[in-house]
Every structure is written in C-alpha cells, then in structure tokens.
C-alpha cells in the first residue's frame, strides 16, 4: 500500500520538467501520470491530521473522488503526449502543476485543503495562457487570474463563515443553509461558469497555446462539477442554472468566428447538463453528471486537440479564414469527426451513454420543461460543435491553405482520445462500474437509439437546408459582446467618467481657491505694500504733532 498523496507526484514532475531538457524530460513527464495512476490503485485511505481543533483530511478516497482522480490522470497523460513536440519549459511545468492541483482539489477531504488547491489551480494554469506570448493572451490571462483568484477568496470567506456556523471544515454535503454556504456556492459557481459568471472561460481559453487549451479544458470546470456533486447534490436551484447554462451558450457559439471560442461555449453548454444532473440529485442524475464529466473531458479534449493541430499548422483559428483542410490533414479531420460525434451523442459514441442519463432523470423527476431545454441544447450542440467545427475547419469552401498533417505525437494523442470515446460509447459497462451510485440504466434501447438518431439527422438536415438557402449566418471576422463587456468596457468607462468628474470638481476648487488667494494677496499688497497707506514712512515732527493733538483733545474732554 502507498500513502503518497496523488498531487505530490505531479508537483515533483513539474520540478523535474523545470530542470530537465530534451528526451529525458519527455520520458519523465510521460511517466508522471503512469506512476500516479499506479499509486492511485494502491493508495491508502484517509490520513487525518488534527490541528487547531479542526480535522484536516488531505486525501479522501471514495468512488466519486477516485473516478475524478483517474480521469485527471488520463487527461494529463493525453495532454502530455499532445504537447511532446513543445520545447517551451513554461508550458510543461505549468501543465503538470495544474494537473497536480486538480488532483489535490478532488481528493481534498476538508475545505481548507480544497481552498489551497482551488487557488493553486488558478495560479498554475494562468501560465498556460501567458505562454502564447501575445498581448491579447496577456490581457486575457490577467482577467482569468483575477476572476479565479476572486473565486478562491470568496470560497475562503465562505469556508470561514461555514466553519464558525457548524464547527466543522469537512468537505461533505453542505446545501444552501447559511450565508457561508451561499458564498461557497458562489465560489464554485464562478469556476463552474454559471451564467454571467462564465466569461473568464471563453475569454481566456481560446487565447492559450494549442496544447495549453487542451490542459485548460480538462481540469478547472470539472473540479467545480466535482465540488458541486460533493457539496450541493439535490439543490433545486442548480436545475434551473444548469438548464440556462445548456441553452444560452449555443446562441453565441453559432455566431462565433474563433473555432476554439466556439468550443469554449460548448464546454459551458456540456457543463450545464452536468449541473442539471447534480441539481436533480437522484442516483441517475448524479451518475449521469459524473459520467458525462468523464466523457466530456475526453471528447472536448479531442476537439480542442484537433483545433489546436489546425492552429499549430496554419496559424489561423477563425472559421472565416479556414476551410478545405481535409485535403491536407485527413487524420486530424477523422479524429475531429469522432470528437464531434461523441459530443453530439451519436449512438456508439461516448456522449450517447451519459448525456441521456441526465435527460431521463429530468423527466422522471417531473421537469419536462427542463427536459425540453436540454433536448434543444442537444440539437444545438450537434449544430455548433458537431457540424460547425469540422465543417468550417476542414470542409466548407476551400481556403487554399495547404499544410502538413499534424505532428505524430498530436496524432497519437488524438487517436487515443478517439479510442476512448468509441470504447466508452460502445462498451459503457466499465465507465458505469466506476460511477458513485448503483447503475441500472440501459442506454441501448431501440427507442433511445431511434429517437436520438432522428433528433440528430433532422438537425443536420436543418443545417444543410439553412446553408443551401443562404440563411445560415456566414462566418465573419468579429467580436461578440458577452457579459465580460461589463468589466472590460462599462466599468472602466464609469470609473473613467467618475475620475473625470472628480478631476473637474478638483480643478474648480483649486482655481477658485487660487483666485481668492490672489485677491487677498492683492488687497494686503494695497494696504501694506510699498507706498501703501499702512507702510508710509512719516517725519518725527508730524508724529509729535499727532501725539500733541491727541493729548490736547483728551485734556479738553476731561475738562468738560
């Protein structure tokens, strides 16, 4: 048995990646998730430390945390293979530290440990964004860091209040019961991309490097999903929040030109399904949420990998500039289509066996309108992630770009991710056996296969008809405003106006004061200045005369 905490292996790996170079570094980095997974199989449960009257539990093992633990090892392994060609030390160190922080967070058994890794997630990952080394990436990275660190600060405030209310820092079911729990909920909500709190993701992820985005897409939001599943299962508000999250991003995705930003929106849309599942709180809902988180990490990673390969080879990521790449990158195209089929939940692909668990659970719990929203979102995600991504990058009109196929290491990573997508979709038993609740769900019924195929085929037909009739909005070089406009334009504008107003008042007061002071000085000058009345020099005789007159007048007055 082992008692090595899972994150330690990754942090040591990050140090090794900092010191080593070349092939040695590649080999060591590839070993990190393998050793980590081996360690996880033989890990001892629960060491607890009592300190200052609170019980700390750095590693808590149960089915829920183990599933996310294995998932993060898998995601890190795929990400490391995908990024092997990269010589940039910053990305390797940051990627490993980030994966380690994710592991630290999902194995945290107490809220203080969770908080520490919550902040480490933000700090370690921001360098993946800076690594693009453009001004845009720098700006987006700073905004990403501020919002994610803010989430941590809110979490800590919530934890302190919660601990003083309940006397415990255990990271178990919390529920919305007091001000502390609301703060914790809000902090998780920021990292989970609740509506209006989501813009850090679509702002920053597409600005990262090809490999950086693959890492970023795997950990932060899934840690948040894990935290919700741990602390807030069955919280009704989550059903409506999740439904909104599944719905609104698809509208942005349809008109977005940057294809990795499209994937960012569809990431939020998929997390929406998970949030609904957690909000329902039934065995089926929780299982669906967790299973979908597992599948999403792989297929969303695969889609980001294929787009990263396109960016790496062509230097372009806008739908308006790409097209026809299937001629140059046939393998990448194939892998992208596997990812697209998986996120769209085609039968035999991974989304099919997990997304429907949440939807069936929504119906069973009496939420038909939420079910309709999720069904709309299912058609929508096929539309923008399933069709739009492969279509505009690899097909559409030929952009004339001819490039090499993706590097072999990227192809291997995409191949492995594709195999997992198809395996989980075709043989879901292994995935189901890892789920936290007992599973009695059968995905492959004739009704489910037929209805899902109908939904997808007719969505595809709608796309084709809209495209042929030119009703489909063309890809345009543009920026679409989102709620980040509030802190990128509106607040700076308001503070600018306020600053201007304060400046004006300040200037007015200063100039008025100066005028008054000037007048005063002039008056004193008139009275006391050279040759003025008060500073005239007089002769002694006149002085004597004045004194004489005064004395005389006094004498006269006294005599009368």
């Amino acid at each position: 048995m082992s008692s090595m905490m899972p994150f330690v292996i990754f942090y040591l790996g990050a140090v090794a990646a900092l010191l080593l170079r070349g092939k040695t570094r590649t080999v060591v980095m590839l070993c990190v998730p393998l050793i980590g997974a081996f360690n996880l199989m033989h890990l001892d449960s629960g060491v607890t430390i009592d300190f200052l009257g609170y019980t700390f539990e750095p590693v808590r093992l149960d089915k829920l945390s183990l599933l996310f633990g294995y998932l993060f090892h898998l995601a890190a392994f795929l990400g490391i293979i995908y990024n092997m060609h990269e010589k940039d030390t910053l990305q390797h160190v940051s990627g490993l530290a980030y994966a380690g922080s994710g592991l630290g967070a999902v194995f945290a058994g107490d809220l203080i440990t969770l908080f520490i890794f919550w902040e480490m997630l933000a700090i370690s990952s921001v360098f993946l964004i800076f690594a693009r080394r453009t001004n845009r990436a720098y700006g987006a990275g700073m905004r990403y860091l501020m919002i994610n660190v803010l989430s941590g600060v809110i979490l800590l405030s919530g934890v302190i209040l919660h601990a003083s209310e309940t006397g415990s820092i255990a990271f178990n079911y919390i529920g919305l019961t007091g001000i502390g729990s609301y703060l914790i909920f809000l902090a998780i909500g920021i990292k989970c991309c609740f509506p209006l709190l989501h813009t850090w993701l679509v702002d920053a992820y597409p600005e990262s490097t090809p490999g950086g985005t693959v890492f970023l897409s795997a950990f932060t939001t899934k840690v948040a999903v894990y935290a919700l599943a741990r602390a807030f299962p069955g919280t009704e508000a989550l059903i409506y929040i999740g439904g909104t999250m599944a719905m609104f991003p698809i509208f942005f995705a349809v008109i977005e030109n940057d294809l990795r930003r499209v994937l960012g929106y569809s990431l939020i849309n998929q997390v929406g399904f998970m949030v609904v599942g957690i909000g329902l709180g039934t065995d089926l809902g929780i299982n669906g949420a967790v299973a979908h988180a597992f599948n999403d990490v792989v297929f969303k990673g695969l889609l980001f990998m294929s787009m990263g390969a396109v960016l790496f080879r062509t230097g372009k990521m806008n739908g308006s500039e790409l097209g026809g790449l299937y001629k140059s990158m046939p393998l990448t195209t194939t892998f992208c289509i596997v990812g697209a089929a998986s996120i769209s939940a085609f039968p035999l692909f991974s989304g099919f066996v997990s997304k429907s668990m949440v939807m069936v659970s929504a119906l069973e719990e009496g939420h038909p309108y939420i079910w309709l929203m999720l069904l709309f979102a299912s058609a929508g995600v096929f539309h923008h992630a399933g069709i739009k991504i492969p279509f505009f990058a690899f097909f559409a009109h030929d952009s004339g770009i001819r490039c090499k196929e993706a590097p072999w290491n990227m192809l291997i990573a995409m191949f492995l991710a594709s195999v997992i997508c198809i395996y989980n979709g075709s043989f879901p038993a292994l995935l189901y056996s890892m789920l936290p609740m007992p599973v009695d769900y059968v995905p492959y019924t004739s009704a489910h296969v037929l209805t899902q195929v109908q939904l997808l085929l007719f969505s595809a037909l709608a796309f084709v008809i809209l495209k042929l009739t030119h009703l489909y909005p063309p890809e345009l070089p543009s920026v679409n405003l989102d709620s980040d406009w509030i802190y990128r334009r509106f607040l700076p504008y308001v503070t600018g106006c306020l600053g201007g107003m304060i400046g004006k008042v300040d200037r007015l007061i200063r100039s008025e004061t100066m005028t008054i002071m000037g007048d005063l000085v002039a008056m004193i000058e008139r009275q006391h200045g050279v040759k003025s009345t008060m500073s005239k020099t007089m002769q002694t005789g006149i002085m004597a005369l004045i004194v004489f007159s005064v004395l005389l007048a006094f004498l006269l007055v006294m005599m009368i």
Partner: protein
Amino acid sequence: MSEHSPKKPGEKEYWLDKQANVMKLVYGLATICALSIIAEFFVHRHVDHPWEGLFAFYGFYGFGACVILVLLAKELRKLIMRKEDYYDE
C-alpha cells in the same frame, strides 16, 4: 478568398470538389431522415412523457430547434457583434 475550389496545379481532384457529389450527400441525408421516420412504425417506442409519444417528435423538434437557434442567433448578431479589434484599442 474565392468560393471556387482553388485547386493547385497537379493536385488530385477530390471527390467532394464536385458540387454534384456534395448534392448526392444532401439527398442521401434526406433519404436517411425519411427512413428514420418510417422506422417509427416498426420500432416500439418506450415513452417517459406524453410529448415524446407524438409522431416524429424528435425529428420535428430537432429540425425546429436548429432553425430557431440559427434565426435567433442571426438577430443576436445585430445586437452584440462588433469589429474584431473592439477590445484591442
């Protein structure tokens, strides 16, 4: 960028380069769509909710959802679309 395929000299012609072949795919898709509706008569449909049981519910809903999605998104563009360098000043 032209709409026409900028085929490089000496490059092989791809099957999809021909517009007629693309249309073959479109007709193929339409045929499969029709078949999936016909299949409803032969496949037992387990129903969790009465709406699900409506004839070709999933087909109509998927088609309608996508059309509404795209048309609404086009309207959304009028509201929120800005120049590419909007934030870059």
